[in-house]
């Protein structure tokens, strides 16, 4: 009687040899994309808008204005008349500077108007009002 050799069952194990490769790949991605926050800023609730565009991070300077009207640049509280000088020196470092406003939605517009006038004096003319995407 002929002998039939029983076929081996296919292995059902997940190959783990390349697991670390995948993990390292993901790790590298997160390590590269991680940005450790440079400044704490002020606590603000930003307004919502639809037609918002991305702002290039490497050319941006952020001005925080909270609902009480406190203004902060680079974690230093500043007064309105100081803004022109500070922004002028920032513009000297980066000619393509975009000034971003992280302003609380309940701040009165008068403060913003004063800051905008300071920016015009400092020749920082590219401005962006940061907002969250409206869903």
């Amino acid at each position, binding site marked *: 009687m002929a002998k039939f050799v029983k076929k081996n069952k296919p292995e059902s194990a997940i190959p783990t040899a390349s697991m670390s490769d995948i993990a390292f790949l993901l790790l590298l991605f997160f390590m590269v994309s*991680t940005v450790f926050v440079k400044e704490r800023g002020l606590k603000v609730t930003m307004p919502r808008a639809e037609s*918002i565009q991305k702002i290039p991070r490497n050319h941006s300077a952020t001005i925080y204005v909270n609902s009480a009207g406190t203004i902060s640049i680079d974690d230093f509280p500043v007064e309105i008349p100081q803004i022109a000088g500070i922004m002028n020196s920032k513009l000297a470092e980066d000619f393509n500077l975009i000034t971003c406003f992280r302003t609380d939605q309940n701040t009165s517009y008068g403060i913003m108007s004063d800051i905008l006038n300071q920016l015009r004096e400092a020749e920082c003319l*590219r401005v962006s009002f940061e907002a969250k995407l409206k869903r």
Partner: protein
Amino acid sequence: MGGIPTSSMSDVAFLLLVFFLSTTKFDIKKGLGIVLPPASTKADKRVKLKDENITKVLINKEGEILLKTKDSEEQISMAKLKSRIRTLVKNNPDMVISLKTDRKSKYKYMVMVLDRLQAAGAEKISLSTN
């Protein structure tokens, strides 16, 4: 055996991965861009605009909006503003929208209106206050 044990390599990698996954914060800046006019007080640099090329959008401290064109003046709701501005800009591509906000008005009203102006395709926007 003098080899480095590689079996726990993935454990180490995953541990680091979890750390970076939990600490990463994608801080993408997004906002409404605008270019301010330079602070020039010289009379020769001032441009006189024709009245028919100016639309004034006024916001009071309660957030109510008044739309003022050369020959009309109407109070308008936030919802209708976009379509109204769109037709104005479509009919006259040179139209300049002057957005005038009360100093006591909330910043969010100004952003909401600016958002709608930009969504309506208005490119020439001027910001001012009283």
